[in-house]
């Protein structure tokens, strides 16, 4: 009976083991030098020591100190004590709002445009050179131009998100639409389906998995880029928070922010994973 673990149970156990190993290595590496001998120190004791020593505050935090920070920050995510001291929920909220704003605008442009490109060889050939030229540009390279023309930091970072989300959605939509099986188009032709109904009832569902895969890639890139963009323009957001805490030399807060960026990124990605499953079809 002992060997009858399911695959996910085994994987879960392995994950937990890995987590414990990471904590152990982390703990060993961050032991205060005077306490090297006490390797098997109680985590609570370590927390007391870490919290007490001035050295630990500016140096690399111990797992226990980290846990304490995570707990404190997550119990009050939405406090606001002025520009340089806001709860993590507020900072993440700013970043998410910018990402969703830019992403939504990009979708509004990219999906119809991708439809047009995928439907017509002429449009494809006309637009392709622009896409090829613009796609490899780092989205942050647009920032000065955005700041100059838009003259607003927050709107500029939304613009940068817009630019970086645009390409994967555009290319995937065009690709998905261009590769709709000829049989399905022939069926709708013999049924004299009008163009609008064909677009929404045949082409869109047929291309949806590819379109959604593009949206997922776009969202991933947008979440990467927002951190850099906010570091650049400052003010609010998780990117600004990271930079600010680095200036405060609070590695604990920086680490905490990194963790949160990862968690939110993962949540966004799995959201698109779920959506992708819902539009997927099996031939």
């Amino acid at each position, binding site marked *: 009976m002992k060997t009858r673990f399911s695959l996910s149970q085994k994987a879960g156990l392995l994950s937990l083991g890995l987590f414990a190993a990471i904590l152990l290595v982390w703990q060993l590496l961050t032991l205060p030098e005077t306490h090297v001998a006490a390797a098997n120190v109680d985590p609570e004791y370590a927390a007391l020591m870490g919290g007490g020593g001035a050295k630990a505050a500016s140096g690399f935090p111990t797992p226990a100190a980290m846990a304490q920070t995570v707990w404190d920050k997550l119990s009050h995510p939405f406090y606001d004590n002025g520009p340089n001291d806001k709860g993590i929920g507020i900072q993440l909220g700013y970043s998410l709002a910018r990402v969703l704003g830019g992403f939504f605008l990009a979708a509004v442009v990219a999906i119809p445009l991708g439809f047009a490109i995928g439907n017509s060889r002429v449009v494809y050939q006309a637009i392709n050179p622009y896409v090829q030229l613009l796609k490899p540009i780092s989205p942050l390279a647009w920032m000065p131009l955005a700041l100059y023309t838009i003259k607003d930091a927050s709107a500029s970072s939304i613009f940068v998100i817009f630019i970086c989300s645009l390409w994967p959605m555009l290319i995937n939509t065009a690709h998905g639409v261009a590769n709709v099986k000829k049989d*399905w188009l022939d069926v709708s032709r*013999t*049924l004299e389906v009008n163009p609008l*109904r064909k677009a929404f009832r045949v082409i869109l569902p047929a291309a949806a998995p590819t379109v959604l895969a593009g949206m997922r890639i776009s969202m991933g890139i947008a979440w990467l880029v927002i951190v850099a963009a906010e570091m650049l323009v400052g003010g609010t957001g998780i990117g600004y928070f990271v930079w600010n805490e680095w200036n405060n030399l609070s590695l604990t807060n920086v680490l905490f922010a990194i963790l949160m960026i990862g968690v939110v990124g993962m949540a966004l990605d799995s959201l698109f994973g779920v959506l992708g499953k819902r539009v997927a*079809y099996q031939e």
Partner: protein
Amino acid sequence: MTSPSIHPFLQVENLARIYPSPSGGEPVTVFDHVNFRIHKGEFVCVTGHSGCGKSTILNILAGLDSASLGNVFMDGREVSGPSLDRGVIFQSHALMPWLTVLENVAFAVKSRWPARNKQQVREHALRYIELVGLKGAEHKLPSQLSGGMKQRVGIARAFSIEPKMLLMDEPFGALDALTRGVIQDELLKICAETQQTVFMITHDVDEAILLSDRIMLMSNGPHARIAEIVNNTLPRPRDRSAIHKQPHYYPIRNHLVDFLVSRSKLFGSLRDAPDAPSSPTVFDPADLVESDVEPVVVHTPPVGKPHIHLVNA
């Protein structure tokens, strides 16, 4: 049996498909001088070797493709594009995999009668799903169906729009013999009930004999054409287990097999005069009383035979 009328239901005149040669030389004529008529309620099968242009002809009839030369008229009007008047059953079933069986059929029904409400569309679709024996599977996705069931959904979809004519491109080619037999029987039954006019491509001689009123035989390309037409005189209703006991069964079958094995190639001699319009030879087992060897080659339509429908271009 149909009787000849002045206005055949479907009339194909001098159809040809010519491709420009890839190397810039002589253009390739896949088929030319294709002439035939189909009358209302008739079931016509076409057979011939791979690549002779059967699918191309069917797609031209469907309006999905256009001919290089020639015209197709249905009900007196020229075919210039796809239409709900002509239902197509695709070889690859062409079901939309994100729609259930019911939704696939309902999509067609709604296309045919946009004014109908949801309930009416649903009832109509269900009636045809039941007709092909898929009652109970209407909420399944195509990926959950067997190949035979998918093909039946394709048949239900094509019949549901009540087209004036049905076009089928090797609809059962991908099915195993047993499933094919069952669906053929169903098709026979539905066609008998609905008096459907059918144009069907098949590679299966027995399928052609079981289903058709006439069998058109295409010679090999290039310059393929309808070389012979066989009148299928076997009485209806036909039963696959007893059909071989009919006196005309073996003459027809041998004639078809013989064509496919040898005569389809010989027909190439006509290529020497590609401009000369050809009339297909007609084989009718009823003529076999005196001659049981090679059928007489006739290049002009004989007079006084009600079952012969020839087109003189």
